[in-house]
C-alpha cells in the first residue's frame, strides 16, 4: 500500500498538522511528532505491515510482537481516515 500523495503533514515548532484534501475542501488534523516521523518514513513509497513493524523495532526499540500490534493500529488509523491507497 501507499500513503496518499495529496495528504501532507506540515510542522512548525513542536506542532504538526495533517492536511487531507477532499472533494468539498480539506480536513485539518493536529497530529503529534510521532505521527509526523512515521508518516515521513513511509510517504512516497510502497510498504507493507511488516515494513512498518520493522521500522518501529528499529527506530523505537520495540519488541517485534508489540511493534506488529502498533503497526497494525497505525495502519488501521491511516485507513480509517482514508490516508492510504493501493
Amino acid at each position, binding site marked *: 500500500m501507499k500513503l496518499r500523495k495529496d495528504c*501532507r503533514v*506540515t*510542522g*512548525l*515548532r513542536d*506542532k*504538526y*498538522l495533517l*492536511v487531507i484534501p477532499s472533494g468539498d475542501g480539506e480536513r*485539518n488534523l*493536529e497530529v503529534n511528532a510521532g505521527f509526523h516521523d512515521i508518516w515521513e518514513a513511509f510517504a512516497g513509497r510502497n510498504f507493507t505491515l511488516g515494513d512498518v513493524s520493522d521500522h518501529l523495532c528499529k527506530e523505537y526499540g520495540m519488541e517485534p510482537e508489540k511493534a506488529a500490534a502498533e503497526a497494525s493500529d497505525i495502519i488501521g488509523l491511516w485507513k480509517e481516515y482514508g490516508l492510504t491507497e493501493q
Partner: protein
Amino acid sequence: MERIWTDRTIDAFFILLRSGLEEKDIEHPLILTEEEWEDILSVSAMQTVTGQVARGIAHLPAGNDVPDMILMKFMKKTDHIVRTSAIISEVRDKLVSAFRAGGLDPVIMKGPESASFYLRPELRESGDLDIFFPGDSFEKACDQVSSMGIIMDKAPDGSVRYLFEGIEIDQHQKYFDLHTERQLPEVPGPYATLLMLSSHILKHCMTAGVGLRQLCDMAMAYRALEDSYDKTALAAMFERTGLESWNKLLASFLEKHLGCRSHPYSQDELPDPTVLMDIIMEGGNFGHHAAGRQKAEKGPLSARKKDTVARMLRRLPFSLKYGRKELFCYFAELVRGNI
C-alpha cells in the same frame, strides 16, 4: 483595509521575515500578545510572505511561546503555498516541454524564476506563470498555443493571457517594464533578471502599489546571482537606463529591512527608504489591500482605472523623483488599459 500596525508588530514581522529569508536563528525571543501574532499573520498574508515568516517562526529561540492557533494558521497557509508551488512547477515544466517540442525556447520570468533564488523556493507564493518570447518567436508561440485549442486574450500591450492546465499564463513579448531602448542587457542573464525585477517594482510603486514579496524577490536575486555579475557594471547599467536613484533607494530598503548587502551600492551613502516603506505598507501585494482598492477591483473597469489614477497622482512626487522617464509612458499605458 484600514489598519494601523504598531511599531512593535512591524519590528517583529521584519525580524521573522529576515530570519525566514536567510534561514538563520533568531537570537532573542519575541514576546507578543495573541493579537499581535494575529497582526503578524495578517501583514504576512497581505504582503504575500507568509511562507518566509513561518520559517522565521521556526527559527525563534527554544521556549519562545507562539499561540497554538497562530501556528496552526501558519501551517495551513504554508501547506497551501507548497501545494500551489508544486502545481505551478509541474505546469511550467509541461508548458516549457510543449514549447521546446515545437522548437521554441521560452524564458520564465517573475514568479517561478524568482522562487528559484530563495533558499526554500516552495514557500515563495506564486499564482500564475509569466513567460517571455523574444522577437518573432512570440508569434510562433501564439500559433502553437492556438494549435493546442487554447483560447487567448490579447492585452493592449501585445501580451497574451490564457489558461494552461488551470493556471493563468501571461505570455510576453516584452521582458522589461521599461520604455527605453538604450543598451538593454541580453535576455536571459543576471543583468536582465535584476533590471527586470527592479523595473517591475518601480512600475508598481508608481502605479497600483507593490508588496514585500517583490522586494524579497529582489533581495534573494541579488544574493543568489552575486557571483554572476559585476557590481560596477550593474550600477553602470542602472545609470544608463535612468534608474540609478531608484535602485539606490531600493538598495537602501533591502539593506535596512531585509539585511541584503549584495546590491551594487554597498560602498555608497544611500537615501532614507521610508518613502518606499510607506508605499509597501499602504497596499501590500500589488496594492490589492490598499484602502478602497478592493472595492474598486470589484467594480467596473472605469472604477479600477479611476482608483489607479488617484494613486498615480498621489505618488507623483515619488514618481517624478525616481521614475520621471517612465511616468508618462505609464499614464499612456493606463489610458490603453495596460495598468
